């Protein structure tokens, strides 16, 4: 079976400083792939290549190939706006736009699709339901997205990402700024999302990776030390470094 995403020999540089070394990673469709590792090991850097968001900054460059459905997206022919529609991203902190709850979710719809008013309303409702936040916001769709709680804001951002009908959702430590109860809700949501999307999550929280992911990649100093199904990584790691990290001896 063809991988949804395949990273081939990815190296990444911040100016002269090399941050990623020859990363190979094959991400399977409709699974949750967790990326773990100590701070500064390149987890986020790796994820930020997938939607080419790093290109906003000067002096950051990448070499290698990144295949999405077998097509290299790092080439100059890639339609970057379409790429970012296909690959959604959730950030460390909730980032609702300064507009109403409804408009937050309608925004990507208006951006990417030509829809009638009622179609937009339907799809906003669908997306909010998919992000399991509909019941909490259905009575305040016209109030500001910033007025919601942190956990709700993050689920609103997930709804916004879903509305663009992506194929892959990247999550860069999505629960690091959120309280434990809200975190649990988002974890349940991720497992639900797996049915429709391919999910990648960077996390500092090893229990989280163990609880929800199907595959886990362990990063250390810019290299992928070990990549396997989550159960194997957490119960029977092949590398000493992985074992040390997951048992809490460093990191």
């Amino acid at each position: 079976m063809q991988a949804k995403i395949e990273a081939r020999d990815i190296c990444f540089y911040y100016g002269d400083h090399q941050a990623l070394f020859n990363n190979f990673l094959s991400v399977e469709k409709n699974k949750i792939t967790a990326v773990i590792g100590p701070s500064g090991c390149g987890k986020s850097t790796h994820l930020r290549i997938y939607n080419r968001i790093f290109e906003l900054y000067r002096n950051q460059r990448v070499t290698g190939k990144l295949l999405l459905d077998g097509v290299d997206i790092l080439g100059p022919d890639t339609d970057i706006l379409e790429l970012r529609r296909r690959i959604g991203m959730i950030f460390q902190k909730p980032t609702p736009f300064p507009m109403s709850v409804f408009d937050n979710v309608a925004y990507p719809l208006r951006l990417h699709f030509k829809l009638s008013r009622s179609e937009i309303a339907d799809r906003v409702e669908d997306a909010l339901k998919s992000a399991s936040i509909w019941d909490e916001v259905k009575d305040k769709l016209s109030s500001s997205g910033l007025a919601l709680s942190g956990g709700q804001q993050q689920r609103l951002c997930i709804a916004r990402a879903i509305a663009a009908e992506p194929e892959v959702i990247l999550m860069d430590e999505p629960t690091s700024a959120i309280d434990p109860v809200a975190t649990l809700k988002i974890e349940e949501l991720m497992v639900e999302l797996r049915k429709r999307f391919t999910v990648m999550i960077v996390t500092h929280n090893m229990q989280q990776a163990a609880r929800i992911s199907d595959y886990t990649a362990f990063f250390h100093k810019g290299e992928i030390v070990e990549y396997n199904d989550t159960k194997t990584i957490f119960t029977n790691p092949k590398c000493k470094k992985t074992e040390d990290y997951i048992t809490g001896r460093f990191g």
Partner: protein
Amino acid sequence: MNAVWAKKNLTDSVFRMLCVCCAGFTGLLMLAFFVQLYVESYGAWEKFGINFIISSEWDPSRDVYGALPGIVGTLSTTAIALVIALPLSFAAAMYLSDAAPLPGAVLSHAVDLLAAIPSVIYGMWGLFLVTPVMQDYVQPFFSETLGLSQVPGLRLIFGPDYNGFGIFTAGVILALMIMPYICAVMRDVFRMTPPMLRESAYGIGCTRWETARDVVLRYGIRGILGGVFIGLGRALGETMAVLFVIGNVMEMPETSYSGATTIASAIANNFSEATGMQRSALFALGFILLAMSFGIQVLAQYYLHATGAKRGESR
């Protein structure tokens, strides 16, 4: 309570009193301006009443005065200035907030320096350079080459007669004067947008323009409007630069190419020789100008407050 503590306490309350006095003084000053201007202009208000504001006649030989030409001139030059300066400042600020370090720093300083140029320099430059260019190239281009003087609605702006002086030229000079202010504020506001917020806009497939318009601008709208109102206030009250290029005619302008006057330049032009009722009328003009600036600020604050919830400010 020991002596050191008591002394510190005393210093503290003295400092506090000083702060209260300074803050109170600014409020008092504002009030004093209004009172003084009203008292000095009382003669004009008593004689002409509300007619002073709506009459367009200004005839010192008959001792009849009306403020309408000045008000119209002030508002229309300011409007032209804002229409030109806003998009230019926005675009320049967008670039500066995101530019490469070297050109970014150089151009940023240039913007800050532009704001420090005295207005009389703008006036001289306007008189000797901008006015002839307007007369020879810009105004004929709009009126004749594009034929806009024949279009009914646009005739008010691009009239058939022109000589370089007038509202339009004054508006252009004012635009250049207020641009650095607006641009500097916008640049700082854009720089304060959280990177993650911008990234999430790009992350769902926004272009640079869409990110700027829908996310960065909305996020910083309060600060940006603050900058706009600094520029607006300056344009309303600018005297020297306008005086050079507006033509100084106390008449209702027919088009934006007509010679006209603004409240500020009318006062500067006539005040030294004015006596009696004319002096009082000029004070009344000053009162109107102050009330206009004040009213616009209040409206702006109210607008920001009223639309805050819609934009997502939880305050």
